[in-house]
């Protein structure tokens, strides 16, 4: 359902943190076009900023010659966002749990957790250089 009306918007950025704001306005405008509620919009925005920041910083190590690419796949019932970097990837399971009391006072390590908390599904592909996130308009059928 909705496959036929899928629209794909692609944004590709040089790996500089200065462009995170551009990413933010693109996501905000796409979410305005779709019919997500305001709270959901903020969650998606946050997840994309986290994933974009990771792609630029950890993946591409802010090498301006490397690109972070964002695909927004707009369907009637959901938004799928695919983030790809040109880095070496990482293993999700090796990342420490930021909610573990011994990690609570660390100043980093909450990005993946927040992404996963904000989206309906987050999957890691191609060794972690591709992250696919989905948010449904309403709770998906069981």
């Amino acid at each position, binding site marked *: 359902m909705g496959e036929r009306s899928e629209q794909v918007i692609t944004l590709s950025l040089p790996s500089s943190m200065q462009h995170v*704001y551009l990413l933010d306005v693109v996501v905000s405008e796409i979410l305005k076009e779709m019919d997500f509620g305001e709270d959901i919009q*903020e969650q998606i925005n*946050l997840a994309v900023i986290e994933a974009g*920041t990771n792609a630029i910083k950890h993946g591409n190590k802010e090498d301006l010659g490397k690109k972070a690419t964002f695909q927004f796949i707009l369907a009637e019932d959901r938004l799928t966002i695919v983030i790809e970097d040109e880095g070496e990837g990482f293993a999700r399971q090796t990342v420490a749990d930021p*909610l573990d009391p011994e990690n609570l006072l*660390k*100043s980093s390590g909450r990005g993946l*957790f*927040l992404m996963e908390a904000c989206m309906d599904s987050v999957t890691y592909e191609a060794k972690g250089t591709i992250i696919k996130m989905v948010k449904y308009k309403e709770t998906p059928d069981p």
Partner: protein
Amino acid sequence: MQVNLRNKGSITILDIAGQVIGTDALALKRIIDEQVQVADNHTEHGEDLNLILNLERVQMMDSSGLGVLVAAHTSVRRNNGQVVLLNLGGNVRSLIVMAKLMTIFDCYDSEAEAIAGIMKS
């Protein structure tokens, strides 16, 4: 992001507005570090550093912004002071709740209460 610095007695209040993400989170960290630096230099004279972060006009915060709050908490504690949060909007509040950081920060809804909270402790 815009940050405005004010003093109320020995308390420093930062009124923060806009987006605390990306390079702006870094900028906020630098501003707070400077306050810590200044307090460090004064500590010999017995001055503590107490910070109120007024987040009322923060539209968006990401994990790096959150990291700045936590780092501020840690370095200010080292100076015998505390960081308290003022006027959490819905977004920022749910971010802090999600990250289980409510136990670390005292949060207030008015400046007077925040100041009283710091004075009491």
